[in-house]
């Protein structure tokens, strides 16, 4: 059962574009009515946008006044930088993402989230609350890979968490409103209400698993759960179990074996290794081993070095030596 704080849930599981709280489908507008939905979410297109109006076109009943949490996955596309044909000026390209419109006013944007390109191939989000009363941007994030956005509005703060890491708000302007009129809102996806320009274009990225709570939730464990396990594990009481996968690697033979202990009981020498193996050796053999640093030392034991050196080892045959 969906939790009561949940006010909107779009998981794009089918082309019907079901919003699961109101149990209504979004409408498709634009030249292309073919909705591209896959396991990876909804693919935004440059000739299409979506509109959700809730039950009986009364807007989604979000019941938001001074707190809100919105989360979603986004696969951003960086379409470069726009150049003004007349002035030659360069500009970031603004691309619409979500626009929540007050149905009472007809066109007043209560919350507008847009994406913007950077010259270095990254993108950033801009959050516009109450038609410019307060505007702030995220830090830049890489394009062409999935990101998870968790945005929290409360009466005094705005927080943007990307991939689990809190971003420092950029280019902040205005004062954050102590409340917003978020009782019943329409939702536009990939549609700019103010039209398009040389530096405003459609979004062609992927978006998935959009949810809205009418509380301010910055619980790190909830963010972790949504990212790692899925949004349902936080917003649906029926999702009570999740899989744990733990992997361990057993390596091959030890690369280094060290001697931990050595005992000479006058009969044998016992050597304890760090891998648990105990070796037994003859003390006689150990004690008579000799290292010869030069020929003179070999001659000292009565051997002729010319005939008895072989590959730096001493080779003995048919002779006797002093021990």
């Amino acid at each position, binding site marked *: 059962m969906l939790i009561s704080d949940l006010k909107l849930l779009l998981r794009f599981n089918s082309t019907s574009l079901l919003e699961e709280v109101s149990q209504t489908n979004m409408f498709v507008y634009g030249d292309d009515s073919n909705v591209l939905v896959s396991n990876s979410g909804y693919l935004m297109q440059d000739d299409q946008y979506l509109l959700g109006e809730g039950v009986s076109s009364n807007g989604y009943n979000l019941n938001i006044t001074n707190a809100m949490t919105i989360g979603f996955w986004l696969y951003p596309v960086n379409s470069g930088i726009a150049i003004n044909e007349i002035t030659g000026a360069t500009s970031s390209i603004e691309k619409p993402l979500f626009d929540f419109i007050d149905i009472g006013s007809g066109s007043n944007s209560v919350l507008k989230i847009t994406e913007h390109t950077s010259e270095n191939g990254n993108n950033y989000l801009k959050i516009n609350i109450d038609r410019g009363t307060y505007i702030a941007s995220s830090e830049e994030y*890489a394009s062409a*890979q*999935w*990101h*998870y956005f968790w945005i929290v509005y409360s009466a005094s703060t705005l927080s943007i968490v*990307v*991939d*689990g*890491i809190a971003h420092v708000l950029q280019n902040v302007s205005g004062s954050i409103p102590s409340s917003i009129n978020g009782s019943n809102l329409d939702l536009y996806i990939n549609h700019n209400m103010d039209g398009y320009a040389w530096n405003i274009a459609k979004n062609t990225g992927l978006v998935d698993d959009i949810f809205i709570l009418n509380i301010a939730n910055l619980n*790190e*464990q909830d*963010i*972790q*759960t949504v*990212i*790692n396990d899925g949004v349902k*594990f936080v917003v649906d009481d029926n*999702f*009570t*179990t*999740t*899989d*744990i*996968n*733990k*992997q*361990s*690697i*057993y*390596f*091959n*033979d*030890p*690369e280094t*074996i060290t001697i931990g202990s050595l005992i000479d009981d006058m009969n044998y020498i016992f050597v304890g290794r*760090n*891998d*648990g*193996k105990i070796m037994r050796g003859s003390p006689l053999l150990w004690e008579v081993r000799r290292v010869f640093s030069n020929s003179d030392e070999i001659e000292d034991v009565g051997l002729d070095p010319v005939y008895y050196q072989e590959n730096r080892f001493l080779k003995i045959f048919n002779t006797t030596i002093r021990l």
Partner: protein
Amino acid sequence: MATLKFYLTSLEPDMSQTVYSQSIGGYISNSFVYPETTLSSTIGLYSSSISLDTPSSGSWAEWQGIEYINIGNELIKVSPIVNGSVSVVQRGYNGIVNMHISNDVVTAASSKELFNDVFNSDHKQYRCIALKNISQISIDPSGTLMAYDLSVYFKQNSRSLNSTIKMALEKPENQYLNSLSTSWNSMQILDTSLIGIYDDDHFKNSYLKIRGGEASGQGKIINSFDSETGTFTFSSSFSSLYDYSINVNYEVFPSPAQRIKTGTISPTFSTNNVTPLLATNENLSLKFFDSVGSTIELGDLNPNEIIYLWLEREIEKGVSNFDNNDCVLNIKYKVAK
């Protein structure tokens, strides 16, 4: 939330096992198979540096040579670890990339000394490790601490053509028990709540530990259990100095696994409590069979319960090169949130 961890096994209960290759059955030791610590800060989906808390041992020595770490479901390849600042070589080495938050458990996913170069005449060696549900209600107040639908299998067997690793699972005869004595003395504990519930000697060789009073923390190996009276008899006596007129909370730990004399002797497989040896994979995990051959799933593991994991490593005769002889073990289970 249920948490499972691997432990080495040892000859005696409630001991540390410092020699990995001596993990050849018996009791669960107090030593992890893998060193572990916790995250000191949150890491996002694409973070390439990781901050680790200093291990409880205070030293990073046992982390030397570690190439992989496990956080949550994610396996991460890292640069050599010399302190708490770790550089990522590859996130999601097992195909899973997750977000991790401060205090999440980090495990070094490499056990370099579990096996050694000592094999029997069949070119085999055996090791036994214990998998325990360590969840405790006092630490984790969240609802259910059981691990559901447990399966254990090799995600990747040895990459060396000259080596194969198989596994078998062993169920303890008894699992964890926590109760209150009806009466006790230096050699026995009587608990009438157990009368008729368990068979005679159901708890034989298990380790019983006192949880409160003067003898708190003291433990004995159970020599026998009498079902008719609910009496545990120990293999050796507690101190005569304790006040035996005051009843005590006690806990009985899961019974030990088979203990082999050396790592080259095969334990017994394919019994009611021990599965056959199998080179498992994701689609071929182990199951128990009862005396009439019926399949028994591994099922669930409650807090403090244990399952033993036997590993058989076999090499080709005359092989001198053991490169790429590692294997990846996977545990999969469900947890209630």
